[in-house]
């Protein structure tokens, strides 16, 4: 498999809510190990695209091809949302979705839910099999937390942690399965400048060390242009342009979508 093969290919994706076409015949392709940004003004349908890829929404039309762990290409459309992670595709959420009542490490452990195999019976009686499995994955979660610099708070509850930490915990949760691709929904929203710079480093490192492809939505143009290899700009669910950050910044249509036309 060469570096230039695609890992995710969205083809002619469309979804409408009532009369509103949230995504309209959108197509793009993401290469292996790429950091790919999806940008667009508010309401452009970015999160809807994410939800269509991860099957939280069922697209009206179109295909979402994903190259799974074995190198086979699968169409994700029609799969159940909980089946997507087992293909090697994990996501985060725009409004952090963590469980307040659980500790930091327990939240991260939820990320490897599909790796747990012990039966209900052996969990009830804490049989050696369940215990070993729990310990093995707990150690892995500790490693991930160390990597993210969260180890010291692993046993604290998620409730009450600062926003930047919550974002990191959510990112840590996606790493538990060593996924082939991570989808980040506005990872830098609400972070201060230092935290944003740190995040850029972390995302790059994840890509380089774990051989993961990253697809992200972001409003912060500086963040996107600093981090992404290629960017796809959309507006009102339609594709405006795909290209390198420089190309996108120079693109006239993108400028119009963001800043408006002079004669309007």
């Amino acid at each position, binding site marked *: 498999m060469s570096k230039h093969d695609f890992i995710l290919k969205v083809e002619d994706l469309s979804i409408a809510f009532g009369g509103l076409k949230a995504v309209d015949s959108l197509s793009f392709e993401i290469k292996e190990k790429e950091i790919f940004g999806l940008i667009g003004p508010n309401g452009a349908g970015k999160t809807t695209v994410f939800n269509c890829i*991860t099957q*939280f929404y069922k697209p009206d039309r179109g295909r979402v091809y994903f190259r799974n762990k074995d190198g086979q290409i699968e169409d994700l459309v029609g799969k*159940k*949302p*909980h*089946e*997507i*992670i*087992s293909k090697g595709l*994990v*996501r985060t*959420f725009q409004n952090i*979705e*963590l*469980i*307040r*009542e*659980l*500790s930091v490490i*327990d939240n991260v*452990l*939820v*990320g490897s*839910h*599909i790796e*747990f195999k*012990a039966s*209900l019976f052996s*969990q*009830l*009686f*804490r049989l050696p099999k*369940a215990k070993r499995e*729990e310990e093995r994955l707990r150690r892995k979660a500790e490693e991930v937390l160390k990597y993210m610099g969260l180890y*010291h708070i692993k*046993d*604290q509850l998620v409730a009450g942690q600062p926003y930047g930490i919550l974002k990191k915990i959510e990112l840590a*949760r996606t790493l538990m399965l060593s996924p082939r691709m991570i989808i980040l929904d506005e990872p830098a929203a609400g972070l201060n400048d230092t935290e944003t710079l740190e995040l850029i480093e972390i995302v790059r490192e994840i890509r380089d060390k774990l051989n993961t492809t990253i697809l992200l939505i972001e409003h912060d143009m500086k963040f996107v242009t600093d981090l992404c290899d290629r960017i796809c700009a959309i507006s009102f669910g339609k594709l405006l342009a795909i290209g390198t950050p420089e190309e996108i910044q120079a693109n006239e249509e993108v400028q119009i979508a963001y800043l408006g036309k002079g004669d309007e």
Partner: protein
Amino acid sequence: MRKRENKLIQVYKSKKPYSDYILFGILLVALPILVDIGLLKYSYLTTIASILIYSIVALGLNLLVGYSGLISLGTAGFMGLGTYLAAFLTKDLNLPFEISLTISVLVPMVIGILTGLVSLRIEGYYLAIATLAISEILRKIFVEFEVVTNGFSGKQASYPTLLGFLDLGRNGTFILIVVFLIGIMILTYNLINSYTGRALSTMRGSEAAAQAMGINIFKYRLLAFAIAVAYSALGGVLYMHFVKYTYPNAWTLTLSLNILAVIIIGGVRSIPGTVLGAFVVFGIPDLILKRLPLIGDIDGAAYIFNGVLIILTILFYPLGLIHIGKDLKKLRFKLRKRKESYSEQA
């Protein structure tokens, strides 16, 4: 100081509460002895036994409400079904206690799973409606299906015989109930601290996160409900063999709501809280209120008591009365800290 508090949390986390549970069990087992030497009235023992049984039932409901975020209003119906099955199988069919116990738990579980298959697909709250209906249907069956249930006059059973020869008397049955309660507490603790428990908590906290992490929401909802029903039915079986009498009007919505009150008052997502709640909701009216002058004469004093208590708990301890203990500990910690800082200054 922060570090020290963290350490405190860690110690608190790593300690398994098995020994606490077992100690609690040993204390309970001593109660029949107190009755025998005349220190405790027999009627108290009966009340405590039913409190323990309701604790088992409430633990199941807590798993459902506290961990999975679902509500069932059919607790009483499934518990009643457990009593009738136990009576029918041991009295009418003369089956051994162990086999009767297994069937009496499995049959309600199957009915529960069927109810869940229909109602859990749509939305969490439909389970409440469906279980309310099932519970009323079951109660109607207890009344109408007279050949087996004896209608309004109710059905009787006797103390269980273990392994075919070990006849348990009143005290033996009480100990059996304690053993079951402690066992259920330990199993429930294990379950909520396993990946299944985390999956349940996740789906209660965020369905989106649960799905994104590969948790099959329908499967886990069904599982939680099946366990809750199994606990209810087990409670029913134990009730039948201790109280030795069951009748349709014991299994109304009021009981289901009382068990819900146990969780709210005692502590959502807390095993000791559930047991504490059962003692408060089912114990205080019977053991204390009824024996007070004036208040004891009011009909429905228990309802007033529980109602007021729910309001007070929600206002001051929204997570349940079990957190009073933690608050006291915190207070002591604070006082000690203050003392330390004083002595440092001096």
